[in-house]
Each structure stands twice: as structure tokens, then as C-alpha cells.
């Protein structure tokens, strides 16, 4: 006969966390992508977040696995810096995002790197760093949800979100 001496087993885990109340509340909605989505036609009241989104452009896009600011991104950020100088009451959060074609942890860092690149550019254009904070969402908040490059290219982005008084 073979005696197997299993060690006694305690049930520490089965007393697990009482199941928390389940809520179905959805996450924060991303900002609209375009004037059309906002139902606007370029006639937003100057100095409003709508004005910023529609007439300045609240987001810049990146190449695959890159945080380098493309020429079009630099133009958008320059317009943002100008607008932010004109309306100094807004605080600013730059959200960095990655497409879904990367691994989760790297993409968290890549989103942060993109947000940092946008932040540094705005500061170089005179925006007070004290108004700026950054956050990375990695690949967790795509705006376009298909499985090809038409969506991935929209998701590799940094979005400048206005806050504070006036927002």
C-alpha cells in the first residue's frame, strides 16, 4: 500500500470577499471625434470647450508604437497652445492612448509617453506646466472599435481635455 500524506487543507479562500454589489455603470464617455458628432458646424461660442474641440482640435494622432509628434500633430498642439494662452482659466488633462495592437502594460506606458510628448510640446509653446496633468489609458479606451488599421490609427492618440472654471 502506498500512503499519501496530503497536508491538511484549510479553507481560507472559500470565505472570500462577500460579493460586492454589482453595478452596471459604464465608464466615462470619450469626447466626440468631430464637429459632426457634436452636432456643430464650426460655430461654437469662442472660449468654450466646444470651440476648442471644433475649431482648434482636441486630439493628435501617432504612428504605430511611436510617441514622436508628427507635423500635423505639432500644428494642432500649436493651435491648442495659442487658444490656451487666450483662455487661461482652463486646467488641462492630456489623455494618452494606444491602439489595441500591443500588450497591456507596455501600452499603458506608451500612452503615458504620448501624453508626456504632447505636454512637453504645449509647455514649450508657453503653456504653464502647472495647468497640465497627464493620464494614460493605454489600450483601455479606444474610440474606434474595429479590428483593422482604420480604427487603430484613430486610437493612437493624445486628447487634450479641458477642466476647471469654464469647462
Amino acid at each position, binding site marked *: *500500500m*502506498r*500512503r*499519501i*500524506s*496530503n*497536508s*491538511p*487543507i*484549510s*479553507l*481560507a*479562500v*472559500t*470565505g*472570500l*470577499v*462577500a*460579493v*460586492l*454589489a*454589482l*453595478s*452596471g*455603470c*459604464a*465608464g*466615462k*464617455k*470619450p469626447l466626440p471625434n468631430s464637429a459632426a458628432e457634436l452636432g456643430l458646424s464650426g460655430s461654437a461660442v469662442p472660449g468654450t470647450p466646444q470651440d476648442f474641440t471644433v475649431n482648434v482640435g482636441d486630439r493628435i494622432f501617432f504612428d504605430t*508604437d511611436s*510617441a514622436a509628434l508628427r507635423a500635423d500633430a505639432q500644428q494642432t498642439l500649436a493651435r491648442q497652445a495659442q487658444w490656451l494662452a487666450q483662455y487661461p482659466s482652463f486646467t488641462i488633462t492630456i489623455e494618452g492612448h494606444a491602439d*489595441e*495592437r*500591443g*500588450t*497591456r*502594460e*507596455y501600452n*499603458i*506606458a*506608451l500612452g*503615458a*509617453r504620448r501624453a*508626456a*510628448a504632447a505636454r512637453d510640446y504645449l509647455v514649450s509653446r508657453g503653456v504653464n506646466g502647472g495647468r497640465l*496633468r497627464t*493620464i*494614460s*489609458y*493605454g489600450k*483601455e*479606451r*479606444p*474610440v*474606434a*472599435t474595429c*479590428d483593422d488599421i482604420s480604427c487603430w490609427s484613430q486610437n493612437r492618440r493624445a486628447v487634450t481635455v479641458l477642466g476647471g472654471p469654464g469647462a
Partner: protein
Amino acid sequence: MHTLTRRLIAFVTVALAALAIGGQPARALVEIDINKGNIEPLPVAITDFISSDGIGAQISGVIAADLKSSGLFAPIGKAAFIEKVSNPDVAPRFADWRVINAQALVIGRVVEEDGGRLRAEFRLWDTFAGEQMLGEQFFTNRENWRRVAHIIADTIYQRLTGEKGYFDTRVVFVSESGPRDARVKRLAIMDQDGANVRFLTRGDNIVLTPRFSPTRQEITYMDFAGGEPKVYLLQLETGQRELVGDFPGMTFSPRFSPDGQQVIMSLQQGGNANIYSMDLRTRRTTRLTNSNAIDTSPSFSPDGSRVVFESDRGGRQQLYVMNASGGEPQRISFGNGSYSTPVWSPRGDLIAFTKQSGGQFSIGVMRPDGSGERILTTGFHNEGPTWAPNGRVLMFFRQAAGSGGPQLYTIDLTGRNERLIKTPEFGSDPAWSPLLE
């Protein structure tokens, strides 16, 4: 005849005395060499355990499913059984089992004792040698019947393979619901076979990359609860959440050290991420990497002496190994593509990773010196391997193109035995527990 010792703990294991079998010649007992490359699954017969209700058959069903899922065993369909076992304390008619090629036979009984406690007992027979290989009893509450089944399956697995099983384990993962652009993510925990799913967070915040403590009922994970995403600890028994450290920036990608006393993680600093460890008792933090790059996904070797991580310091994500105290890392991945999410096997012999190459995402393994790379599965998106505690099976998540969301899969080290682990919602970021104690 049965009881040798009794311990008053939730589960008590007792060896059953071997049944006396007269006149059988001694033969080599059936066993599996798990290290052989191309293993034919061992045909085994797992009979419904005798019981006054359906519980015996349920336990047998879970044992059979566990053993089958390993890819090492092929449970024989019950329709083929010739002998109908009615008394597990009597030796079976071995010829009846040999003729259907059952190399091993599992029989058992489940009895509800006074007070509602279950007594589950089983015997494992070598049908060709005509010898009992195992005979044990377990006592437990009825609600734990699945655990009893997993423990019996682990016992059989260990007896027949010589290696520890992994069936009496749990998996913590991220359960995903809602639209893809506003996904609700909740931490969840389940048995390794997908049973008994429980949610640990409410879905108010994005939660990512949970990992089990090797020593406590605790996980570490990333939570967007505060203004800045950070690494937290979550006590599984109380639900208490605690921030890890006081870092000036986003922390992510946490993992415990093998002794459970440290959490190693990345700290974002501007455009770069570096790796830090924090001693959970002294709260002291140590910086381990210092580069103008993204250093992340650190994972300790099982002896705690080294750390594997990914870095894009050379341009693309590659795997590096350094001493647990820091110092100059050595790159170990040199194949065609980028490598990420390295995880050191609990056996120490392999590192599992995600590899991106040619627009595909693969799960693979290599030795800690970078040699012997093997890809186990490739497709549109496979990510985030985690090891079963015996180092023989990996779990990961897969999202097929156009599928809408990720699901959890296991694959063994041969790459041939791949299985979907069904979850109530989409599932990602699995992390396997140690063997339960």
C-alpha cells in the same frame, strides 16, 4: 479498517487500507513520463462514485474533466464499462477493465455522515498489475464538493505522473462587459476550470493585471480609482484595498516576489517607465532600472534571485534578465519580432512571453538564457501568459479578429492541448493562484 488518523480541519485526508488481493504477480505500475515529447493520453476509467444522490457522479465528472483537461489522460466513456461497480471496498474485476484498455481505474463512494458532513473516498487501481495505487478518504462540507473532486484529481495526477497537480487552484482575472469603447472591467476569481466565479470589484473603475500573492489571500493589481492609475493590494477575505507605496506618478505592472514580501512594478516618469520594488513590511522602495525607455512587466525567478522584464531600450520590446537587486540587465530575446509580458515558470526552467511578429500575437516559452524558444500558439491576438503552479500549463487571453472581446484559454507546454475556459463575460489578464493549502 479505514481510518488511520483524523484531523478536525475542513478537509481531512485519510489513507484507505489496500485491499488484499491474493496471488497477483507484481508488475510495473502504470505511470506517465510527462517529460516525453509526444505523449499519448493514458486511457483511464473513472466510474461514478457510489452515493445516495447525484453527488458521487458529480464528483467523478469533475475528476474526469480535470484529468482530461491536462491532455495526459483520456477518460473512457462510461458506455464502454463492463463491470458495474457497486461496492468500492471489493477488488474490481480487472479483466473487465483491461478488455476496454483502461490502464487505471478510479472507483469511490460518497457518504453523507451525521451532521451533513460528506465523506468521499476513492481507490485508484492499476488494472494490468491488479494493484491498488491509492486509497484515500476526505471529509468536507457538501458545498465544497468541487474542491474534493479537484483534490482527488490532483492526487491521481501526482500518483500517475510523479508531479504535483494544479486542479485545486484558482484564477483571478478581469471580467469585461459593455461596449468596447467603454468597457466595464471587474476583478473576478474562479476555480481553474471556470467554476464558482465571484466578482471582487464593482466595475466603477478600470482594473488591470491582477496577480496572486504566493503566500497570502491577497492580490496586487492596477486600479484607476484615484486621479492617477496606481498599483493596489486587495485582501481577498475582507475586500480591503490598499495603495502600494507613495510614488510620484503612475505605477503599474505589479507582481509579488516569491516570498510574498515585495511587490515589483513600473513607475512612469515622464515618457519613461522604470522598475521599482517595494518591501511590504518596511515600505522601503528600491529602484532597479534606470533607462530612457519603457521598462515593465517584471517577474521574479522562483528563487527570488533574478528578475525578467521587458524593455524597449533597444528600440523594440525585448526581454532582459537582471539581478533582483538591479544592475546591468542581459538581453535574452533575439528572435524576429518583439517580446513582452515575460513570466518566470514556478519550476524555474522556462520564461513564458507574448511575441508580436508579422502582425500576429503568439504565446511562447524560452529558457532563462534565451535559448530554446518555442511558440505554443499564434493568432490575431494572444497575450499575457500565466503559469499553472506545476509549470506544465499556461493560461492566457485571446481575442480573435471581429470577436468583440477576449476569452481565456489554457495550453500545455507541447502546444497541442489548447482549451477555452468559459467565463460569464469576456475575460482577460488571468493570473493563476499557487496550489491551495
